[in-house]
Every structure is written in C-alpha cells, then in structure tokens.
C-alpha cells in the first residue's frame, strides 16, 4: 500500500499526474484510433445483429466502466472515511461526473441499439434498467457532494452514500432481473449476445482498453482541477 500512501498527498499526486498525463493521453489517442478502425472498418457485421453490432463496441465497454466507476467511488469513499485520505475525497469528486457520463452514453447507445433491433428506443431490459438506476445513484452522489457549503462535509456524506450504494447495486441488479423475467417475454435477446463471436471480441477489447484509458485520463485531469479548486477555496478563506 506504500504507493497509495505516496500519492496520498495531493501535491505529490499533482506532480505525478503532470508527468504521466501527456504520455497517457497519447496512448489513449493511439489505442482509440486502433479501436475505432477495428470497430468501424475492419470487423465483419455480426451474423445476428448485422451492422448494429458496431454500437456494441461503445455500449458494452461504457457499461463496464460505469459500473467500475461506481466501485471506484465506493473504494475512495472507504479510503476517505476510514483513513481520512485528503486525495480520496478530491478524486471521488472528480470521478463521479465521469462515471455518470459513461452511464449516460451507455444508456443512449443502448436505446440507439434497441431501435433497429426491437423497434423502440427504450426497452425495460434488465441491464438497461439497472444502468438507469446506477445513473441515478451517480446523480445522487454528485448532488450530495455539492449540497453543503463545507466541501469536506459533502465529500464525506457522498462517501457514505457510495458505500451504501455499492452494497445495494447487486440487490438492485437481482431485483430488476427478477422483475424483468416476470414481465418480459423470454424471447428478448440478451444485449451482449449468447456468446461473443471471436471476430467481435478483439475490437470490443481494444475499444474497452481505449475507453478505460480515457476514463483514467478524465479522472486525472479533473482531480488536478479539484486539488487546485480546494487550494483556491483555502486561500480565499484564509484571507
């Protein structure tokens, strides 16, 4: 855990991210270019979904990252509440909107995928519905962290919500799945398809890597901003 401690000090994190970010954003651009090429040009249309499988290359990775993002919020929340990590609060405040955007993109691409496949923009599919609720949990986290004049109070309240939220996510997923099988005719095809055809797997993985790198870059940029914003507030209050 020494590395976590080394970065614990926000100033040291800032110096680290300033060094790493240029390299990381270069890598992100590169992997994204490769991914887009594979996704849009190289890969064949899927035997079931036809061309629309290309939407999957955005939809599925953003779903993974939206969920991973919330787990990150919970982890940072625990770090803040248990060890009073100053950086954890700032990174959580930076990461929440990023996770929310990934969830939103996942929902929108999901509905754009649904229109040609099922004829409607919104299907109460179990995964889409769970993603919608995850999106609300993100909104709650963002709103709560900004609901107090004392930013640190907001960070700690949002951290508690994230921990409770992450415990409830599987419960929400389970209940929505149950609710879905109850009301939805069984014939609805699962979003990811029964088994992912190898030709689809590579572009999916490359795009997932690209979006993961993008997620990290976004969080690091926003964390730098949050660190500076907190220093600005401290300076203003000290006057």
């Amino acid at each position: 855990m020494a590395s976590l401690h080394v970065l614990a000090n926000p100033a040291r994190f800032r110096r680290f991210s300033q060094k790493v970010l240029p390299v990381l954003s270069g890598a992100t651009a590169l992997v994204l270019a490769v991914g887009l090429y594979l996704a849009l040009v190289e890969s064949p249309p899927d035997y079931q979904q036809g061309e629309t499988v290309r939407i999957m290359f955005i939809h599925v990775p953003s779903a993974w990252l939206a969920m991973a993002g919330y787990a990150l919020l919970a982890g940072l929340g625990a770090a803040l509440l248990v060890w009073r990590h100053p950086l954890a609060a700032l990174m959580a405040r930076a990461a929440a909107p990023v996770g929310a955007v990934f969830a939103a993109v996942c929902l929108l691409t999901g509905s754009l995928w649904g229109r040609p496949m099922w004829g409607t923009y919104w299907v109460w599919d179990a995964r889409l519905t769970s993603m919608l609720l995850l999106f609300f949990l993100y909104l709650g986290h963002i709103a709560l962290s900004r609901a107090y004049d004392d930013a640190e109070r907001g960070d700690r309240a949002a951290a508690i919500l994230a921990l409770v939220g992450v415990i409830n996510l599987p419960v929400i997923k389970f209940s929505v799945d149950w609710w879905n099988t109850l009301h939805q005719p069984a014939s609805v095809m699962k979003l990811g398809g029964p088994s992912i055809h190898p030709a689809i797997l590579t572009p999916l993985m490359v795009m997932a890597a690209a979006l993961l790198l993008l997620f990290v870059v976004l969080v690091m940029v926003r964390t730098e901003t949050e660190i500076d914003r907190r220093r600005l507030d401290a300076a203003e209050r000290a006057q």
Partner: protein
Amino acid sequence: MSGFTALLARDLRLVWRRPGDVMVVLAFFVVATVLFPLGIGPETNLLARIAAGILWCAALFAALLSLDRLFAADYEDGALDLLLLAPWPLELAALAKCLAHWIVTGLPLAVLAPFMGLLFGLSGEGLAALGLTLLVGTPALSLIGGLAAALTLGARRGGALLALLALPLCVPTLIFGAGAVEAVATGGGFLTHLAILGALALLSLATLPWAIAAALRQAGE
C-alpha cells in the same frame, strides 16, 4: 429504562402531542391514490392490474414525505448533540428514530392501503397481500429514508435531494412489494415475494443503522 426505549418513547410522545403531522402524511396517501383512477379511468379490470404499483408508489412517496423532519428537528433544536453524547451506541439511536418513523407512517399505511385497494377492485387475497407486503416492506423504506434524511441534514434543497438519494435504493423493495400483489392477481402465490421483502428489510437493518450513525456524527462536526 434503556436509552433506546427512552428515545422511542420520546419520539412517539412528540407525535402524539402533534398528531396533525401524521394525519397529513396519511391524507396525502389517500389523495394520491384516488387521483390515479381519476386520471386513468374507472374500468375496474385495468385498475385492478395496476393497483399494486400505484398503491406501493403512493406509500413510498408518503413515507418519504415525512422523513425530512426525522432528524432535522433534533438538528435545529440542539437535541442531536445530546444523542451524539448519549452513553450508548448511536446506531441504536438511529434505529430508534427509524422505528418511530415506521410506527408512525409504515404501520398505518399498511393498515390503510387495503381499504384503498377496494377503490381499485382488488380481491380479498390481493388486499391481504397488499397489507402484508407493506407491513414487511416499509421498515426498509424507513431505514433507507432515514439514511437519506441523515445525509441531507443541513444541506441546501434538502427535500428533493432526500428523494433523489432514497428512491433508487427503494427500488428492490418496490419491485417485490408491488410484484407480490400482482402475483396474487394472476393466481400465483406471493410467499416468495414476502420472503425476499423480509430479506431486504433484514439487509437494511444490518447495514443502514451504521451508515446513519456515521452520517449523524458528521452532522455534529
């Protein structure tokens, strides 16, 4: 007398001294449910099908309505400090507050809802399912709502924020509560739903008092 019962007794006596606050919440529940047939139309078979969801949602909103005063009153008059300084676990105090809220809103809603179910043409067993699921499901709502109330203590726009925080977490209880009543309507049994509702209530009981206590301690800082 243990601190837990003292706090519970105090809160119930406070409600007894001012019954108006509770009547408003129950009146809201009645009015809210009556609106739906007016909006949707009186044909009974349609109403019977959607009755479960409507009654459960109305009960959920009624429970949330009365929550923002749960800790705010103590926060504003300084009684919260005395709870934070009580020589027994704050988790128990959180539980006592949520229990008082449940006795005052969850319980009466579970008794009142079956009568409202008559307006929707629900059958005898459907009404029983409605009452039972509300009885077993509303404790989880009181605990989740209690957490949302504690997290928004002293926050701007507390009321709307409280609903935004609580509603996603209430979805599982809503799904199985309404699902049970609908299962009865389609001839199935609702015991599994009831069991899951009980499990959800236990999960809330096992985790939320600690979260509420942590939120209250922060409010005291």
